């Protein structure tokens, strides 16, 4: 079970990110989650939205370079130790983590972690075996 993440290439200059947020705002697109990665010469914005196809279309129409790929979204209790629990499972199973980021939704006492590993299907398997709840794209709009 995965969700679709949109990655956007950003140049390393001051207006790059605001141009992205402006485009999203003008098209009435609400972000469920956003994470930024940056190097000394470029950046990547990774976002989770309700309607992936529509968002992709809007961004491409505005000349953004985008890529959609599956990532794992896990639901965890908003309590100390719950992230550690997930990471321990990944480490014990030697899953190589590329990046992760978290967000909260409207549900009280629940948080969500986006997890990107080198091998997504294998990671899904490992998490499922440990009874970790994962959410899919259709659930995103309800959280």
């Amino acid at each position: 079970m995965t969700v679709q993440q949109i990655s956007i290439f950003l140049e390393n200059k001051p207006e790059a990110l605001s141009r992205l947020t402006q485009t999203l705002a003008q098209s009435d697109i609400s972000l469920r989650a956003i994470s930024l990665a940056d190097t000394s010469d470029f950046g990547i914005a990774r976002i989770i939205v309700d309607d992936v196809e529509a968002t992709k279309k809007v961004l491409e129409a505005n000349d953004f370079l985008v890529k959609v790929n599956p990532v794992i979204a896990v639901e965890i209790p908003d309590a100390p130790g719950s992230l550690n629990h997930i990471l321990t499972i990944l480490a014990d199973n030697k899953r190589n983590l590329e990046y992760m980021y978290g967000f909260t939704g409207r549900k009280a006492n629940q948080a969500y972690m986006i997890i990107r590993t080198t091998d997504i299907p294998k990671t899904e398997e490992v998490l499922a075996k440990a009874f970790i709840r994962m959410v899919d794209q259709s659930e995103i709009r309800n959280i």
Partner: protein
Amino acid sequence: MGRLKYYQPEYECMDYEQLKELQGKRLAETFRHVYENVEYYRKRCEEAGVTPDDIKGLEDLDKIPFTCKDDLRATYPYGLFAVPKEKVVRIHASSGTTGKQIVVGYTKEDLDIWDDCAARQLVAVGADENDIVQVAYGYGLFTGGFGLHGGATKLGCQVIPISSGNTQRQITFMKDLRSTVLACTPSYAAYLGEALHDMGLTPDDICLKAGIFGAEPWTEEMRRDIEKSLGIKAYDIYGLTEVLGPGVSYECAEQKGMHVNEDHFIVETIDPETGKRLPEGSKGELVFTAITKRAFPLMRFRTKDIGVLTREKCACGRTFVRMTKPMGRTDDMLIIRGVNVFPSQIEGVLLQNGYQANYQIIVGRENNTDTFEIKVEMVPEKFSDVVSEIEKEEKKLQNALLNILQVKAKVTLVAPKTIARSEGKAKRVIDTRKLHD
């Protein structure tokens, strides 16, 4: 001033009429040699209806077809060699307009000529066998290192073949071995001048008296800066791989242009559009004909360098014609850290590596070193949500560029459609260096 005034006064100060006769005779001989041994060029002559019998002297120069850089590429690697391979004792190379290198060769006698030309330069800056010459030009396929090395050896100097780079060691050797003459690119000389001061030293701590700097454009202002920071007189040397290497022409103590070694090379200036020869004193494309070399004697090679020639009497006593330092190019070649770079080479590498041929070259100068950045538009195929994946591709491109260009460029990935299209080469290259007076 050294013990010697000239290295070969019988040529360097030759009466002009006599010189013209010598050039005419050598031109006829060399043209015949090329015609008989280089099939590619013979065909060119046949098309033009010229045979060796038509070339009797200097007055027939106009009849001889030009050789261009494209001809060197078309005949890579040995197509323009005029002697059998066993006569060739040395190869040098420089970059061509595409990925291919331009390869040239020398016989033993050719190397002798080169040594003489470089030795004349050394004597003109006041050197003799008592001098210690630190050759900080790169050694290898690039002609700079070996060219000055050969000249200094022939003159009987003590040669330090330190090559380029390792600035601390350069200064240490300069100080400890008491080098008196430095040979390198002008930008590296300026850099060494700064490094000297950064190490808490002054020109009084070293014994340098003269520098021979070439392989890239530089200004009078830069000359004065180098002279001050290293406590020397700085001289210009001109050459190009296709014709010889450093030593095609050389500056004397007057510092008023470079004397062309006319007993070995005939120089002309032409209108780059029409190919017509221009009178002395007018600005035009420099064209050289090698009249003594045997392995790779190019006939009327178009350099694409713009310059002016003058036969005005020089106070040094040499009668060889003087050329200004190149005032620009007729093509889009850039010289970055002494290395020739063509935008078309960059384009080729980008296409081969899956990027679009949309790029911008930004060249500048910081701390007397050229900065070189290539902005490349990101393409969907190279984009990833993982930073390290993109960096891996970026590194691959950087290595491919280094491999072809032989000079390191900083690659900056920019968003698609951010580099202006079809605005001509003026936009493709942003060069903020001040290279010409």
